[in-house]
């Protein structure tokens, strides 16, 4: 029975959770990159070189995408905490804006990384 479908604000909330879990793992990638890039000039160039590989670009893009989505959804959360868009229509609009803004940012991040 698929009588119940998740409304749009529910989807953005679920994505907020998924991106949060991904980020928690992604921090290990970011810390590893920070460590390698700061330890020596060779390490710094090594990170730069590694980032030329498509698989590395894909991993970084995935982490940055999770970060951007989590960021945008988080800002929406904080705005709603202050009472902005707390109605049913407001929540739907907020969810749409969250998805559109984060999608644009994720595409731009992809352009930046490639």
């Amino acid at each position: 029975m698929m009588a119940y479908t998740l409304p749009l604000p529910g989807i953005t909330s679920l994505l907020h959770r998924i991106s949060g879990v991904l980020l928690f793992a992604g921090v290990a990638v970011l810390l590893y990159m920070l460590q390698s890039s700061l330890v020596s000039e060779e390490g710094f160039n090594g990170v730069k070189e590694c980032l030329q590989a498509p698989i590395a670009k894909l991993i970084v893009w995935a982490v940055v995408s999770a970060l951007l989505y989590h960021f945008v959804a988080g800002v929406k959360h904080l705005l709603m905490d202050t009472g902005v868009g707390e109605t049913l229509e407001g929540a739907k609009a907020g969810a749409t804006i969250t998805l559109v803004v984060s999608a644009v940012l994720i595409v731009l991040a992809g352009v930046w990384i490639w």
Partner: protein
Amino acid sequence: MVTNVTSFGRSGLYDWMMQRVTAVILAAYTVFILGYLLLNPDLTYVQWKELFDGTCVRIFSLLTLLSLGGHAWVGLWTIATDYLKATGVRFIFQAICGAVMFAYLVWGIQILWGL
């Protein structure tokens, strides 16, 4: 009053507040680092090293790592209590999360202070 021993601050209201305060710090750091990388496309090692040699950036970075720990604890607690109904499973999940957070914190301090 419903209490849950694995919440961050032993109070839902405190957790709610911590989640938001840490969120603002994490957001600010995200803007700072992404902005820096965007404004310096031809970043060199010396520039990058100098940035993280600065006391202000180290303080900001450590604050962000501590915020991450608190923020992720509340977030993962929320998810764990929603989806992992068996107490034993949830306990193990939260224990692993806590250990990972602590490892991130110590690792981050090592990176920042070059220990």
